[in-house]
């Protein structure tokens, strides 16, 4: 297809503003795929295609419209995947910015719009859900126009649900978005904007060909990573996998690589043909680094090998996931896992539980700290128990957060951000009613429950997005927990000095409730270094007998003691103290910690 008849675009939107519905309508309108079929074939392809031996989801679908080839490129939906989103956007020339005509501009709308602008994309603003009674298209159109510096008259008004205006969107894509402008004759270059793992075919790369031509069976090379492989098959999604004899400049499609591990082919890398390689890769590749870390432990320690296998399998499909074995006194064998952010963590956890049927304990997450020792050495610390005692300085990651909220909630948001050590940057009125607040916050302050709090304090009206904003020095301390005088590694935490006392107190109180009485007094302490900041005692038990035991009671009584004995065997030993697993769970569990 000549490049001038190709358009590559994404749809970007805040969650629930109608991105998927619009995509559905476009497929219906162009591809004669019925709504029901499409739903099965495209949206639920992960489930359905597994039966056919294909386990990947289309990340780019090719449709025909009025003699043009349109490639709709899907973007990951969340802040954690900003980098992935930006690579997907880099594969496009334009982006359809969908805004709910009732809800208006939200934080993700802004973030995505800026990201698209940064990637030099043309924007096609679209108001969706104009059929809703509470839609306020004029006001929202003004908001959108203000946001992207366009004229409100250029904002399309549609209802993806009813299909109204969708054809206009397709027409506008052809009219307003530029055609790709690659060099057809130049050495081949293609941007890897996503990849997936299929258990039979290995890694499938989603690519946007920028220059030249790719053909099946050619030897290819990923220029940044240096990975070499043969293109076993080339093709595109229409919406099912459709092999083709070539992918040429401007086109979007897939390459079956036969590679066995997605980490060997990173998003953002550039593919070229070995026989006639390009001189330089496409710009923009960077290695994404996990910023949020948490321990993942199987609830039943027998499941450890299953967890390892599951992580290995997930890793095939998720290059951003990192993990290393971790042994915890309290929780046994597990993994310390690194995630791009909170949502990434939730996704991984959910997939492990749902797809691999694992029962998991996820510890309260922490961020990646950079610690400078007294000796001047700089180390990155991913776990509080690895935090050295003798430190000169600790740096922690900060984010720039934007919160969009109706103006009556501004106070509530400011209060929350202040509680979380936020530094106010500025505030703008998006409209008469809605405000965007920009704060700088330590990432550590949002990893636990910031989002939940934000939602609950604004009755769900606030939307939130963030971007990493580098490292700053923090007044951070490590709080250790001692049970019976023994420090428990898994319970150590790194926290701002001002919160240390309250948190130490809460931990100690909770443990006192959870640790059963023993044959002796058990002190439970929280300490910063050698200074005790909170202390409680589990008093020794004075009585533990069942009064009555005669001929008819013996079996029951014996079984009771045997059960008790078995229970003791499952307890974790901290020095001489027996601590039930549940006690650790109570203080380590992410869900508990949020309460």
């Amino acid at each position, binding site marked *: 297809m000549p490049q001038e008849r190709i358009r590559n675009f994404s749809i970007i939107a805040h969650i629930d503003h109608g991105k998927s519905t619009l995509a559905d309508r476009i497929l219906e309108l162009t591809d004669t795929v019925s709504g029901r079929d499409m739903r099965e074939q495209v949206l639920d392809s992960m489930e359905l295609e597994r039966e056919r031996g294909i386990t990947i989801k289309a990340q780019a679908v090719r449709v025909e419209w009025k003699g043009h080839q349109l490639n709709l490129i899907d973007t990951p939906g969340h802040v954690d995947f900003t980098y992935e989103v930006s690579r997907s956007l880099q594969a496009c020339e334009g982006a359809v910015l969908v805004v709910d005509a009732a809800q208006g501009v939200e934080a993700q709308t802004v973030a995505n719009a800026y990201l698209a602008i940064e990637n030099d994309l043309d924007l096609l603003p679209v108001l969706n859900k104009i059929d809703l009674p509470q839609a306020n298209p004029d006001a929202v159109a003004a908001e959108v126009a203000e946001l992207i510096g366009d004229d409100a008259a250029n904002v399309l008004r549609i209802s993806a649900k009813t299909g109204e205006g969708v054809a206009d969107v397709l027409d506008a894509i052809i009219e307003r978005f530029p055609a790709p402008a690659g060099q057809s004759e130049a050495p081949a270059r293609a941007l890897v904007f996503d990849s997936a793992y299929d258990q039979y075919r290995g890694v499938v790369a989603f690519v946007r060909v920028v220059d030249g031509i790719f053909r099946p069976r050619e030897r290819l090379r990923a220029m940044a990573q240096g990975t070499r492989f043969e293109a076993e098959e080339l093709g595109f999604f229409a919406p099912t996998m459709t092999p083709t004899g070539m992918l040429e400049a401007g086109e979007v499609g897939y390459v079956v690589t036969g590679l066995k591990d997605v980490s060997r082919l990173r998003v953002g890398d550039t593919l070229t043909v070995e026989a006639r390689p390009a001189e330089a890769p496409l710009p923009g590749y960077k290695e994404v680094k996990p910023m949020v870390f948490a321990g993942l432990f199987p609830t039943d320690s027998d499941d450890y090998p299953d967890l390892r296998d599951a992580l290995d399998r997930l890793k095939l499909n998720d290059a951003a996931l990192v993990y290393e074995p971790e042994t915890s006194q309290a929780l046994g064998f597990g993994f310390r896992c690194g995630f791009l952010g909170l949502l990434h963590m939730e996704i991984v956890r959910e997939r492990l539980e749902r797809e691999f049927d694992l029962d998991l304990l996820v510890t309260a997450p922490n961020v990646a700290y950079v610690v400078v020792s007294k000796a001047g050495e700089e180390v990155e610390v991913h776990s509080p128990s690895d935090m050295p005692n003798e430190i000169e300085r600790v740096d922690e990651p900060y984010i720039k957060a934007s919160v969009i909220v109706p103006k009556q909630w501004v106070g509530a948001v400011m209060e929350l951000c202040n509680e979380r050590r936020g530094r106010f940057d500025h505030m703008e009125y998006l409209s008469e009613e809605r405000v965007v607040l920009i704060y700088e916050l330590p990432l550590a302050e949002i990893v636990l429950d910031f989002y939940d709090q934000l939602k609950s304090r604004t009755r769900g009206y606030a939307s939130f997005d963030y971007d990493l904003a580098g490292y700053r020095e923090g007044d951070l301390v490590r709080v250790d927990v001692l049970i019976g005088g023994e420090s428990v590694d898994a319970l150590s935490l790194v926290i701002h000095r001002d919160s240390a006392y309250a948190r130490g107190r809460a931990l100690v109180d909770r443990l006192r409730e959870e640790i059963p009485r023993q044959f002796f007094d058990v002190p439970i302490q929280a300490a910063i270094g050698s200074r005790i900041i909170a202390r409680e005692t589990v008093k020794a038990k004075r009585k*533990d007998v069942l009064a009555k*035991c005669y001929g008819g009671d013996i079996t029951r009584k014996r079984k009771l003691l045997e059960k008790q*004995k078995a229970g003791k065997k499952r307890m974790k030993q901290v020095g001489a103290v027996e601590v039930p697993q549940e006690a650790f769970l109570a203080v380590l569990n992410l869900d508990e910690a949020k309460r």
Partner: protein
Amino acid sequence: MSHVRHLYVHLPFCAYRCGYCDFVTLVGRRGDHGSYAAAVLSELELERPLLTTELETIFVGGGTPTYLERDALTGLLAALPPASELTIEANPETVTRELADGLRRAGVTRVSLGAQSFQPHLLEVLDRHATPDIVRRAFYHLRDASFDNISLDLIYGIPGQSTADLERDLEAAVALQPEHLSLYELEAKPGTRFTHAHGEELGRQAEAMEDYLERVVDVLRSAGYRWYETANFCLEASRAGGRDLRSLHNLAYWRGRDYLGLGIGAVSTVSDRRWQNAPRLRPYLEALAERRRPPREVEPLPPEVRLRERAMLGLRLDQPLLLASVDGALDGQALRRLERLALVERHGEDGGATIELTERGRFVGDAVAAELIA
């Protein structure tokens, strides 16, 4: 084969059912008393080959044995094999002078009287129909019939009970100078109406229980009683003319001896088997009318399980347990830890080595036993 020296007879009938009770009991059914007694004797005949000709102890429990229709009870007691100790349980309101004399004549040597409490409001909570005066009168009737071995049962941890109530109960019991006292924690079974009715208060009582047990031991000791088993006290031999007033029948359980139980719901332990008769009256009567064994549930008891039980039961007593007698049933590492914690003491060497719970160990005896049994 004929080696069993201890016999338990279960007489399940009661005039009414107390809210807290979870024994196998039947209310009323006076028409069945005669046939039940006959059935028990049939069962005795079937199992007699297990028994030695002269028994050491017989314990007739219930239910309310003394509620059994008079002729049936007299006939039953007369037909039991001879035994050095014959105990019967009695409910205070059933004890008349006449009954006491009758029991004495029937060869009963020991009566266990279910007093439970001397506080009217607590007796009411327990659904007991006896008043404190009836309890005392029953006791005097037994004394007048020249019983010289009477035990009183008391319950503590009753909803509404205070420490002062408990002390008053102990005082009242001691004032009667019984030879023996059993002190039971109220065990409220989850799911029962009683537990439902008193849920919150039972929780409060459970917390007070550790104070209660300490009080019980203190008070009874200073009154001259020996805390010889977790829940049982007897007058010190020195105050009883040298008599050993422990319940010999129950001692047999705690020493891990074999015993035969007759009647519905009764449990027997003989060699490597334990069985429990089904708790239903009709099938029991029908089977024994045809000289068949009643329906039973049998539990195999491999030697290691019996050893474990012997350790668990032996540790309830105030006497040293011969280590060699529970060989292999104990966790050596746990034993050393418990010694270090001064909960268990070890005496003697090698074959003669014994273990014994310390005073503090006895108060947490179940936890110690749970730790010790391998």
